[in-house]
């Protein structure tokens, strides 16, 4: 029934145009501005729902396709479509944005219209990234994403925001320039000159070409994920960003890196991916183990969660790139490769919920005490029992407790990586210990114990707005943890098709 409507365009442009309107309405009536922003974000979410409800899980083909010529000379098209890989990430984007708007309700008093508008525009642009099937269109959305995020950190950020924004911008921009070169190069290699990403999938490329292209993509995506050693921008960006900025950054922007590997690197350069998989696997395992230890000693809650994000994203890239080794393992045969890919996908969605929730938890405390230092807290449970319950719940999810979504992806990737090599699984599984150690140690020092000081003694428990935000995310984490089957079903056909595609050498 929705087949005739341009759902994807609506999901992209509704928040962008809505955001412009919010921006234009100015700050004279902040309450009305906030309400408008909230209504737009909810409408966007509702508009995006048919992507799930009318999704055909039996096919790996692109769905909800929209195609129109944009810049005819270069055959740049306005080409949109989703498959089982991008659709869950789009729903995640529209879902999380609602909570970002709600979370900034009373907290943001300085230029609320611009704040809300930035997030709405950001939302549309991110949906654009996930649904663009034309490489140039993708690139435009990809770069456009930086601008609102840049403003969010730069305008509403902390005292060190200038340093953080520069670092954030240069890192990500540095990465994407190489990607642009690769995209244009491939354009020149197509017979008729096309920027179609799907066309790139079938483009014949030699090994050397593939390796260059792979490395160019890697620079862009590794920075976004972020992978060790190009991760140091993330803790700084998080620390300076306002709560909403951190949420979007962790929940969605990092996923764009992971998405890029699935949409570009693996299918376009399968042979190079096969050649260089050891590199990605090594970096992923370093992320899990090394970053796990680094997270342990952080004193700033946001930094700790930022490092935890890097470690969790290590599982995503690990799950994606063990594919070739599993295929090469005579004991494991093909089985296991899909498990790894789907595990990485589930981990992305789950991390979207959990990291968002944890940053919101820190935001709740920060709004009251204006400190993110673990040492400034202690015994929060005595004044904020409800909040403490949420905090412990999300901490446990972050530590991968079965029954929460945090477990699903890790479990799948550990199971899959065992098929590639015992030691991959061994190193990956250290997250069971490290993840629990850094998360629960933080919880111990912040939530439990005696009331540490007067500020903690004066804390008020969460209000209904905060309860709604944390409760919704808790529900999402729980549902996905207890019944991940629907998510898997949605992506199954696309992942299987991807695997079939990359199993065929382009050489």
């Amino acid at each position: 029934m929705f087949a005739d409507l341009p759902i994807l365009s609506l999901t992209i442009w509704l928040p962008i145009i809505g955001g412009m309107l919010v921006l234009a309405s100015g700050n004279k009536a902040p309450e009305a501005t906030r309400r408008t922003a909230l209504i737009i974000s909810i409408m966007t979410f509702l508009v995006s729902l048919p992507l799930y409800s009318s999704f055909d899980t039996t096919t790996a083909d692109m769905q909800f396709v929209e195609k129109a010529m944009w810049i005819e000379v270069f055959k740049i098209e306005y080409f949109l479509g989703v498959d089982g890989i991008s659709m869950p990430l789009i729903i995640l984007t529209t879902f999380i944005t609602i909570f970002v708007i709600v979370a900034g309700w009373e907290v943001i008093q300085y230029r609320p219209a611009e704040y809300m508008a930035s997030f709405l525009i950001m939302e549309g642009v991110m949906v654009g990234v996930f649904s663009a099937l034309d490489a140039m269109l993708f690139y435009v959305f990809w770069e456009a994403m930086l601008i609102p995020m840049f403003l969010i950190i730069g305008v509403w950020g902390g005292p060190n925001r200038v340093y953080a924004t520069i670092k954030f911008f240069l890192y990500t921009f540095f990465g994407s320039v190489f990607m642009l070169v690769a995209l244009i190069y491939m354009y020149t290699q197509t017979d008729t000159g096309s920027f179609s990403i799907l066309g790139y999938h079938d483009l014949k490329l030699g090994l050397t070409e593939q390796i260059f292209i792979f490395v160019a993509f890697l620079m862009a995506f590794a920075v976004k994920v972020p992978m060790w050693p190009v991760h140091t921008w993330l803790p700084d960006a998080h620390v300076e960003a306002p709560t909403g900025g951190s949420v979007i950054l962790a929940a969605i922007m990092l996923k764009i890196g992971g998405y890029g590997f699935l949409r570009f690197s693996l299918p376009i350069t399968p042979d190079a991916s096969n050649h260089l998989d050891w590199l990605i696997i090594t970096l992923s395992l370093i992320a899990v183990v090394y970053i796990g230890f680094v997270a342990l000693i952080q004193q700033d809650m946001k930094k700790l969660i930022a490092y935890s994000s890097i470690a969790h994203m290590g599982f995503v890239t690990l799950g994606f790139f063990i594919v070739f080794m599993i295929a090469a393992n005579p004991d494991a045969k093909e089985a296991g490769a899909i498990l790894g890919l789907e595990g990485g996908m589930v981990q992305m969605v789950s991390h979207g919920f959990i990291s968002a929730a944890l940053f919101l938890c820190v935001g709740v405390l920060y709004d009251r005490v204006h400190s993110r230092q673990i040492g400034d807290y202690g015994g929060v449970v005595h004044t904020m029992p409800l909040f403490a319950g949420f905090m412990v719940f999300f901490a446990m999810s972050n530590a991968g407790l079965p029954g929460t979504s945090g477990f699903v992806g890790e479990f799948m990737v550990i199971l899959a990586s065992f098929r590639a090599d015992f030691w991959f699984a061994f190193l990956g599984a250290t997250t069971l210990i490290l993840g629990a150690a850094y998360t629960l140690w933080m919880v111990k020092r912040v939530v439990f114990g005696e009331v540490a000081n007067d500020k903690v003694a004066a804390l008020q428990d969460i209000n209904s707005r905060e309860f709604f935000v944390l409760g919704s995310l808790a529900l999402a984490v729980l549902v996905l943890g207890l019944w991940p089957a629907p998510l898997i079903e949605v992506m199954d056909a696309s992942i299987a098709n991807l695997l079939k595609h990359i199993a065929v050498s382009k050489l």
Partner: protein
Amino acid sequence: MEILFLAIVLAPLIGAVIAGFWGDRIGRVGAHWVTSSGVGISALLSLYVLSGFITGSREPFNGSVYTWMVSDGLHMEVGFLVDQLTALMMSVVTFVSFCIHIYTIGYMADDEHNWPEGSLAGTNSYQRFFSYISLFTFSMLMLVMSNNFLQLFFGWEAVGLVSYLLIGFWSVRPTAIFANLKAFLVNRVGDFGFILGIAAIAMYTGSLDYSEVFKAIPGLADTQIQIFGDSSWSLMTVICILLFIGAMGKSAQVPLHVWLPDSMEGPTPISALIHAATMVTAGVFMVARMSPLYEFSETALSFILVIGATTAIFTGLIGIVQNDIKRVVAYSTLSQLGYMMVALGASAYAAGIFHLMTHAFFKALLFLAAGSVIIGMHHDQDIRNMGGIKKYMPWTYWTSLLGSLALIGFPGFSGFFSKDAIIEAVHHSSIPGAGYAYLAVVIGVFVTALYSFRMFFLVFHGKGPRDEHAKAHLHESPKVVTVPLVLLAIPSVFIGYFTVKAVLFEGWLGDALFVLPQHDTLGALAQSVSGPNEMISHGFHGLPLYLALAGLVTAGVIYLAFPSIADTIKKLFKPINIALEKKYWFDEAYQFLFAGGSRNLGRFLWETGDRLIIDNVIINGSARSIGRFADRIRNVQTGYLYHYAIAMILGLLLLLTWFVIAA
């Protein structure tokens, strides 16, 4: 049929959810009613299932409830396997849990005093406690009723979560929140091995379902895999040891035993339920359930035997020097868990499960009795301050005596049958390590009797209590406390006598356990004895009984008749005494190596790796050199780098647009 099993699992969960989320509204009475009836229903239905297996009217059930997910052809489901082993575990868990719910009504009655004034966390602590113990019952049932490894792992971690919440229940106490973090992390070390074991199973059998896996195992018995370079390992050994590492965490076996004594920081009812009767036996249950795997790896069995025996003897010795009433019982639990593991290592799975069951009753009893004493002593737990409590607390005294006799294996008591069966089974075992294990469990009998009656005499007999104020207020605990003691005392005494024949010698557990003929130690034992009376008369001809009596008498002589002997012995064996009091320095070593070591490693990686090398040298370094280069060429500057960056993007867009228009 499925509805019945669902009801057993969900009744405690519903109670937990109601008491947890609406504790405010339903109040304290509402909370303990809703949770106790949930667990009560579950207990009755479990006993009904068990009776079906006893009368033979019930067949094992194996079915799935719903599909968690299917990925890559790997079916992950939530489902139940209910056979004799499961039914027995379900009944033990729910019965003990029910007793503890009742007991908690009395024990937690004045919990407000444990919270600082004005603490909002303290306002509903009573309801929350009931919610947690019901949630625990649900998790434990999910664990024992599972028919696949995924759900096993879910239950495994869920009981760990509840244990974490309950050890740290009095979260204002620094020792409690230290202990719960420690417990969770040490358990996670075990789970680390466990999940790798599950991954290995999934890889080589292509399934997580027990029945599928068990079917595939004999075909894999000779498979060799390479882990360290080219050295070959038997696949079964690798899987079994990995899984057993999980059991070592949950069932607190050396060297992962360090969390259990500290877990005594939690309220006593959960020490009884979780850290004595049920959760810590999950490892024992798991190994027994996996007997079709373990039977194919003698190396793994030997490993279990040695670890179990070491735990049994060395933690028992620590029990002799402890002065905290709960810690004595905790070390006793460690030691008894070692006994169960020894049984498993000797392939006497039925004996291990049998001891698990008898131990659940008498150890829960001993803990609850200790809790009763603690209530009487106004939360003073030092046994040196006690004494002469017998006349003030008769119910507690007599039930404690029965529990202690069961623990030391006094003939006729339930512990006698289970412990004797283990000792005899090890005697018949011929796998490597059996000799050491036999020695350990036999000496362990003396040690058990010594620490048990040392505590018993110090607490209940002699003069005391030391504190006059305590003496004046000392009285028997209320009925909600003593009734569970009596309820648990009955099976502590009798259950062994009435069930030993069926469980150990008549194969009542049926196909739930699998033993290869060459490992059948219980079968060998059945050649000489076949019933409870024979076991008792046989017992009088064996060494263990006299060792137990010797321990009892020694305790009486040293701690009742001539207290000065204890000091003399302490002085004579000073190094040993210190080693025992320091618990062999495990805690210190772990604290230094793991806690301190990982913090230092983390700091090094962060400061040297992230900040110095990546940020300072590479990022800022290249930024600086670009900056120096730019200094020379730039003639327009705003001072902000990001302006340049924006300019770059805008430039790019302009360039593209220009291209388009020009073309």
